[in-house]
Structures are given as C-alpha cells and as structure tokens.
C-alpha cells in the first residue's frame, strides 16, 4: 500500500510539470497579454512593464525561471493585474474561503444526497421514492447560477433574513446561501446515482441470501448493501470534491465571497499569467491528491481491490 502511494506521488511530479508547460504555452499563445488595454501604453512604457515582469525574456527562459522559483523559493510570482499582491497572497486569501464553503457544500451534498438516494431505493416505487426522485431532478435542473439570484431574492430582499453577500470571516449567516447554491445540483446527482446503485445492489444475489437467512432489513442495508452501493457514488464524489473545493466562480460572483473561483476566471480574462498558472497548479495538485484518496477509498470499500 505504502509503495503504491509513493509510486503514485512520484508519477504526479511529471504530471504537474506537463500541466505547467501546457498551460504556460496555451496562455502565451492566446491573443492579447496582461498589458493589452484600451489605452495601449507607449512603446517605452510597455518595454518597462515587460522588463519588470520578465516578459521580455524568451519564453523558455520565462518558463525555466518560473519553475525554478517555485521549486527553490515556493514563489509563484507577482500578479500582473493586482500590483501590490503576488500569487501566494491571492491563493492564501482566496483558497481558505473556497475551501470552507466548498467543503461544507460537499458535506451537505453528499450526506443529504446519499440519504435521499438510499431512502428512495429502499422505499422503491412508493410516494417517498417518487418524491425524492422529483426533488433530485429539480435540484439537478437548478444550476447554481439560477439558484444564486433566487436565494438572494428570497432570503435577502423578501424575508430579510440573510445578508446578500460578502464573507465576513466566514460567519454562518454568510455561508448559508453559498452552500445551498453550490450543493443543490450535486445533491440531486448524488441522490440519483445512490438510488440506482442501491437498487442494483438490493437485487443482487448476496442480498437475497442475506434476506433468506433471516437477517433484519437494517443489518442488510447497513452491513451489506451500503458499501457496494458507494462504489459508483465514490467515483462521482472524487471529481465533485475537487470541483467544489477549488471554488465556484458563480458563487464568488453572486455572493461576493472572495474565493478562488473568481480569481481563476478573472486571471484568464485579464491574462494575469502568473495567477492563472498558480491557480491551475493548485487545482492540478488537488486533483492528483483527491484521485489518489478516491483510489484508496475504493480499496477500503471493495475487498476485491488490492494495491
């Protein structure tokens, strides 16, 4: 197991390097640059700007400097747009925010989604089943960019219960709407995947055997059905986990949370090369780590899988 983990982590290094190289060149090939503006600076000013940020160097040199700075100093460079902040600052400020509301959304989506899915499968073809299925479809059909404005309209303008946005250090009032907005559609998907997976498991031979030997339904569900049910759910949860943790641009835009999602999209639009690369690397590392964790979870869930 340990050697498997080490092997996976070693493979991760060239993966991340490839990611950096691909992202770096794609970024530079996109038309326009960080200093392209409606008021293009005069040539002398542009030359100063490029010299300050090292953009006057050949591309391979820029890439080399970038990577060595990360490896030697853990320095992801300055932001080209926010002149007094560097990429480390931006990630240090935005990532904890994304992490907080993302993790809570993940917890909400997975716990509620799995419970709903299980209940629906156990009470197959009853009103409970129909109700949870329609709830799931409705939740899935309401993406967060629809949920956001509806929530603000309801809770802020009509009911006056919650502040319309902001973060305020993550006080609960500021967390409620982002978490609901971000989690509902995942919740819907998770409940549907859980339901169909559970139905399949409940119809399998080993469950029939368990029933035949007279085990109580509770034990059958908890001890025998739940774990195999989680296999397909798990493969869906992995990517969802990365996605919600890295922040959602919609949540950041609608609730002014100040998370990393907005910084990521904003940096692509303003060609803030270093921020874009920095956040991409963070996302890459997270994906690699979460994929590893998901694979380890498979081994725990399914005794047939051994590393």
């Amino acid at each position, binding site marked *: 197991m340990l050697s498997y983990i080490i092997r996976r982590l070693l493979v991760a290094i060239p993966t991340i390097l490839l990611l950096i190289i691909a992202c770096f060149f794609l970024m530079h090939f996109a038309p*326009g640059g960080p200093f392209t503006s*409606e008021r293009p600076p005069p040539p*002398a*000013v542009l030359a100063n700007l490029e010299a300050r940020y090292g953009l006057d160097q050949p591309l391979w040199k820029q890439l080399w400097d970038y990577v060595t700075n990360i490896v030697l100093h853990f320095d992801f460079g300055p932001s080209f747009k926010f002149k007094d902040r560097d990429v480390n600052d*931006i990630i240090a*400020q935005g990532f904890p925010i994304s992490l907080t509301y993302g993790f809570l959304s993940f917890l909400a989506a997975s716990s509620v989604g799995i419970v709903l899915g299980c209940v629906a499968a156990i009470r197959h073809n009853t009103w409970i089943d129909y109700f949870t299925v329609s709830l799931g479809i409705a939740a899935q059909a309401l993406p967060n960019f629809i949920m*956001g404005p509806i929530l603000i309209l309801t809770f802020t303008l009509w009911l006056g219960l919650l502040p*319309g946005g902001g*973060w305020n250090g993550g006080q609960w009032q500021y967390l409620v709407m982002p978490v609901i907005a971000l989690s509902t559609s995942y919740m819907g998907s998770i409940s549907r995947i859980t339901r169909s997976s559970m139905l399949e498991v409940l119809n399998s031979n080993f469950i029939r055997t368990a029933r035949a030997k007279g085990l109580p339904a509770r034990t059958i569900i908890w001890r025998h059905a739940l774990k195999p049910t989680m296999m397909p759910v798990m493969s869906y949860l992995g990517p969802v986990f990365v996605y919600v943790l890295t922040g959602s641009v919609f949540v*950041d835009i609608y609730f002014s949370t100040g998370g990393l999602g907005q910084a990521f999209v904003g940096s692509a639009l303003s060609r803030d090369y270093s921020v874009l690369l920095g956040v991409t690397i963070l996302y890459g590392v997270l994906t690699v780590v979460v994929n590893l964790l998901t694979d380890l979870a498979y081994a725990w869930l399914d005794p047939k899988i051994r590393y």
Partner: protein
Amino acid sequence: MQKKTRLFVAGLLSSTFITGTAFAGGTHPTTGEPLADDQTFIYRVLDEHTSVDPQVVEDVSGSEIVRDLFEGLMNQDADGNLVPGVATGYTANEDNTVYTFTLRDNAKWSNGDPVTASDFVFAWQRAASPELASAYQWYIELMSIENASAVIAGDKPLDALGVKALDDLTFEVTLSAPLPYFPQMTTHSTTFPAPQKVVEMHGDAWIKPENIVSNGAYVLTEHLPQERSTRERNTMYWDNDATIIDKVVALVINDENVALTRYMAGELDRTEMPAGQFPRMSKEHPEEAISFPRLCSYYYTFNLSDSGPEEFKDVRVRKALALTVDRKIITENVMAGGQTEAFSFAPVATAGFEPPEAKMASMSQAERDAMAVELLAEAGFGKDNPLKFNMMYNTSEGHKKIAVAMSQMWKQKLGVEVELSNQEWKVFLETRGNQDFELARGAWCGDYNEASTFLDLMDSESGYNDGKFESARVDELLASAKTSGDTTPLYTEVEQIIANEVPIIPIYHYAGVYMMDSDVGNWPVNNVQQNWYSKDLYKIAE
C-alpha cells in the same frame, strides 16, 4: 517675466466652519439639513481595484479610493471646477511652460509628518520611473513634463524630470510644451504625493492597511480582496473639521443584478443601474434612480488603413452608414438610461467645447435616411449590388443589442448586408489594434475635462487611432490647440472635419445611471468626470 496669477480663497471654505468634528446627528453647516447619526457611506464596485498606490492605480474604482486616501495639488468641486487641494494656488509663466504651486502649511500625512514639495517631487519621479514601471507612465508623458520621455525610456536619470521643490512649500513644474489646461491634470491620481520614507521602508507592501500612510481625508483601515475595502476619517487631514462622512465602504459585487437586489435590501447606498432597468426603477423609485451625463462616447470606427475594405475609402459610403443609424432608438429603447444621442466625438458636456452645427443633428431621421439612400446609390451600391461588410464588437450582451439594432437599420433602410462578429475583450483589442477589422466598436472616456482627451485620438500619429484616419488639417489644428489660449474654435473645426469625413460613427454619450439612496447628500451629478470625494458627501437623517 509677467506672471498670470490665479489664487484661490482657500480659507473661505474652511473658515465658515467652526472647529469641531462631530457632525453626526447635528445639522449640515451650510445647508442646515439634519444629519444622520451614522455617517457611513457604502457603495458597490464592479471589480476588485488593481491597487491603491496613487502612481500605480489604473482602474476607476481604484482611483475613487485613491482620491479619498490621497490629496493632490488641486481638487475638483461638485461641478468639476478646480479648487485648492494641497496647493492653495498656482502661478504660470507667460507661455504656460512653468507652473509654480504654493502648498498649504497645514497639510499633514496621517502619521503627522508635514506634506512638502519634495513629497510631490518624489511621487512624480516615481510615476516616471522605469523601475516602478507604472502603466500610467504615459500620463507623465501626456502632461508634457520636461524630459519625461527620456526618463521613462531610461535615457536620463529620475532627477532630470522637470519637477523641483524650490522650498518646502513651493513646487515647480517645467513643461516641454505649453499646456493651458495643465492644472486640471493635477487632479488625476498619478500626480498625488507619496510618502518617501514609508514607500522605501515597505516597498510594494506600503499600501497595505497596516503600513499605509496617506495625506487625504481618509485612511485605509481594511482591505479584504474581492470582498470589501474600508476607509475611515484621517484625523491629521488639514480640513478634517469640515469632513462629515466618517466611514466609506466599497463592496465588490460582480453581478449588477445582485447588486441591485442588495441595494433594494438596504445593504448599499449606491449602485450602478443594470442596463434597461432605468425606466422601471425611475417610475417605482423616482427619488433614488438618477441619471446624469458622463464624459464618455460610444462609437464605431471604420478601418481606413490599407488593410481596410475598399468600400470604406469612399466617404459617401461612410456618411450613408452614419446617417442611417437612428440614435434615438438606441438611446431611448435599447439603453434607456438617459444616454444622449451623439453627433460629435467629444461629448457636448466637455468643458470649453462647442460642437459644430452639424447638419445631421438638425435633420429628421427620415431626411437622413433619404440622403443616405442617395449617397449610397451614388457610390454604386443598391439592392442589386448590396454593400457587405463585417462589424465587430467585444463580447457583451449590451454591445450585441446595439450592433444588432444598427445592422437591422442598415439592412432595412439601405439593403446593406452586415456580418456581426464578437471577440473576447483582450482578443478584440489586439485585433482592432492590428487593423484586422472592417468596422469595430470603440468607446472612450475623458481623462481630463478638455476636448483634446477625445480629439487627440484622431491625430494620425496617435497610438489609439485604430481606424488610421489621417488628416493633415486635423493634425495641424490639434498641434496648435496645445499652445493656443482659445481652443474652442480649433476643436469645433476638428469636429467639423470629423462630421465631413466620417472616420467614426458616434452613437451615444454615456450617462451615469445609479440607484442612490435619497439620504446621500451632495453627490456631484454635475461633475461629468465623476471625480467624487467622500469628504464632500454627507448622510441626511431620515
């Protein structure tokens, strides 16, 4: 040397106030209105500001904060007129090439140090410094300060820049070209002073709330990037006794509809009106929906360079297209926020500018359309041989609506076939800058309140002249406007040439369209540049 002296009665304003800072809960010293207990002004900004370093800041929301944190030589009043800032007044030599500013002796930094002429020398040299590499170095060049170009290019040392501290309270600027409107340019944030000691101690981090030292009416007390920034009263500010607003909060809200909802929920005192909402909001909340002219123009530019289409080389074609755009439909039905129809490039609201008597403006739309049909037929285009071209704008719902409306007008009235295309902002700028277009959208806001901030774009040498319009007469007129005492007729003639040659199609002049809480007093709606200062505002008790 004969000197033109313009001194301002600096004491007049401050002497009307009796010492005492607590206005909250009292009455306004001049208008007598009852003042609210809580003097906090909260407003929405679209995006996180790029910086609050006066020499570095590039964006509008950053400049608004910088104008509160720092004070330059001159300020603007609610009508956009020049009033004293750190300088009590200035003198210019006869040909407007040497300006001498006298600084007030009671101006202080927020750490108690006096504001001196050398703070301005340091700041202006800093703005030109190749090492700092501010994107606003061009502004120092635009101000025509002696040796600016050479200093920026790194050919001359910083101290070669034409700025000098004659003594602690006398700041002298030498220009390479006479600029009659130079003092107006000192209201721009690039020219605000910077505290040398603090900048040198903290480097780029000097503007973080824990380090910053500023000389304006407010100090930065909190900055949560992408969320909000807060500025509070600077007790060291020389005119602090007359300041009423205690605290100003800028909330970053990217989505304008969410911002409007939060405004309606009472979280904000001011927000921008989403396009198309003004008619409804002004009916439902007449006291809060406001619209006023801005110093910005929306236009389309023809590509007149060699890479441009042959058809556009014919002035009759350009004129026909310009005539058929029904600006009334665009301003009243598409924008519907109090924007005004544009028949000149510089907005009519620009100081010292009189638009020429454009024949087009006085005609009815039907007459314009008839004339356009004739012109286009003369140029050899008609139903059998329709004019075809591509029209490009940067991706946005608002621009799309206008482009669709314009192309429909042309199709219906002239049978012109227009292909619409849109590009993401930075791609669009690159494409337009490389003359890789036929007809492209453009917009320009004045950097200072003088027509040259617009008309200089029509100079054949201008880096912003994306359509590559060339007219020797326009170049000549613009050059002489730089030194002339009476620029109005010169600018009028430039606009006349633009009206005749039609290198661009002006569509509309912008309006500032806000929802503004009716308890906000003294918002400068007459300041077309919207240079507002929180120290001049107040909150009325409800």
